[in-house]
């Protein structure tokens, strides 16, 4: 196995996104093709320059990427669809990165897109007998992790609420977010209880949308933007012994995991990139539920176990803090189109490193990290540098 950091350097040739929200009269192929065209324009490239396409989505069915690309034009290139739950776009990005690094292709498209199903969505992670017992309520799955985290660290429900308040504050500065309105601690604490102790505003909202990336070798770059390089892109799909209730995985008491899937994917990413958490200037963490951002930051190595609530209160994770986290508002503000979500995170890192994040720009951001998780389970870490 050849380490990826010994292979060809891969750079971000172009990026594209749509405004995330609910769209009754558009489908995933509309968002997907719009994001692709935006990425092409950003890259200053022609459609015929693209040599392969990896397309992430979760609920769109057979050939979903083909449907999006058909809107632009079939050109004989291979189109591969990637369904990897909430890590789908990070997984598509990783495949694009690998094929350019391995010099199989020079210019490759990665796109993530989703029109979320309307109404309740039954999870495929749960067996029929578990569905009959009501185990498939995602906030309830997270609530079970949250109460153990509270017991272990002394974190409070106010701490969880402050994650929502912070991310919605950041999201107010993101014109592509579904929610661009700030909320107060009171708003969160007075929102409806969903699964004790978690309330509605501890859960990220859903959304429709897409994000697209053109990855290429450095000699194929056409745009005049600051050059952003892929320093690492890792994927860990579960480890034995670690519990992950949202994917219906119960931990082993006899053989607990030595390292969680998040820790393992982060370790591999830091090793490949040659950076540690102390070198990261901007972070997109996985805040599908507000408390998850806290243990996510701990497992990614940004602080010690149990320290995140304290650092959050100190403002360390604010836009102008020492470790700015979810600068675009996170899942809490962007909304969660499953197949596109990880792409939204990577898109924000590229903007930050290019210095194009406008009012939410982190000063002198040189290295950024995006972390997506999700059912499977999966943990995908992307590190970009400039």
């Amino acid at each position, binding site marked *: 196995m050849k380490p990826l950091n010994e292979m060809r350097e891969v750079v971000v040739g172009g990026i594209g996104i749509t405004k995330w929200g609910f769209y009754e009269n558009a489908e995933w192929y509309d968002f997907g093709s719009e994001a692709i065209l935006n990425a092409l324009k950003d890259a200053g490239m022609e459609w015929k320059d693209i040599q392969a396409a990896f397309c992430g989505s979760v609920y769109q069915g057979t050939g979903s990427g083909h449907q999006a690309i058909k809107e632009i034009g079939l050109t004989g290139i291979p189109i591969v669809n990637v369904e990897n739950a909430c890590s789908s776009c990070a997984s598509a990005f990783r495949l694009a990165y690998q094929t350019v690094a391995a010099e199989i292709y020079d210019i490759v498209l990665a796109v993530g897109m989703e029109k979320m199903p309307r109404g*309740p*969505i039954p999870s495929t992670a749960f067996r029929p007998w578990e569905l*009959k017992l*009501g185990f498939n309520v995602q906030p309830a799955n997270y*609530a079970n992790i949250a109460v153990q985290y509270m017991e272990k660290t002394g974190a409070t429900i106010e701490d969880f609420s402050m994650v929502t308040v912070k991310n919605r504050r950041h999201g107010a500065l993101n014109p592509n977010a579904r929610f661009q309105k700030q909320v107060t601690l009171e708003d969160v604490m007075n929102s409806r209880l969903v699964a004790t102790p978690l309330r509605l505003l501890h859960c990220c909202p859903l959304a429709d949308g897409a994000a697209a990336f053109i990855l290429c070798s450095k000699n194929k770059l056409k745009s005049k933007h600051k050059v952003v390089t892929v320093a690492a892109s890792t994927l860990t799909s579960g480890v034995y012994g670690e519990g992950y209730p949202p994917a219906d995985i119960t931990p082993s*008491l*006899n053989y607990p995991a030595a390292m969680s899937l998040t820790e393992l994917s982060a370790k591999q990413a830091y090793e490949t990139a040659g950076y540690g958490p102390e070198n990261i200037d901007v972070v997109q963490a996985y805040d599908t539920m507000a408390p998850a951002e806290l243990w996510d930051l701990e497992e990614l190595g940004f602080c010690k176990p149990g320290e995140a609530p304290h650092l959050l209160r100190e403002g360390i994770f604010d836009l102008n803090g020492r470790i700015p986290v979810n600068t675009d508002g996170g899942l809490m503000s962007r909304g969660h189109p499953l197949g596109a979500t990880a792409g939204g995170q990577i898109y924000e890192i590229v903007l930050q490193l290019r210095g194009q994040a406008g009012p939410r720009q982190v000063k002198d951001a040189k290295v950024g990290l995006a972390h997506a998780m999700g059912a499977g389970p999966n943990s995908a870490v992307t590190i970009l540098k400039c």
Partner: protein
Amino acid sequence: MNNGEKRIIPLTEGLYTLPALLDEKPHLIGSKCSNCNELYFPKKEKGLCIHCQQKTLEEVELSRQGKIASFTIVLQPPAGGFYHGPVPYAYGYVDLPEGVRVETQFTGNFNNLEIDGDVELVIEKLYENAEGDEFVTYKFKPLKEQK
């Protein structure tokens, strides 16, 4: 046809023993690996240990008592229309002393639920259908509420 008599139907077969005698109590049925000693609930039908990948699993009866690892009171009905029990309901995990964590519903007074609290297995109604048939399941109940 139930001739007007209401039936008691397990929500799912094979999760627990049904005692033949009145003074016997039900047990959850799990799997134990004779190679690595790993334990599973529910039992693994294929007999393959997902820790050591050997086909060395044997069916075992699990302890009736354990401690609450975590719990939540769910106030939102589950998606998909598969769940017919009451809402709110209590859902979480119980650690059994031999070393296996069990995903479960809890019954009894929700105020008596606490992390590390002692609980015992019960077989209880989850819901009744229009014909009056009772669908029953395993649940765990705080020990202080047991007779």
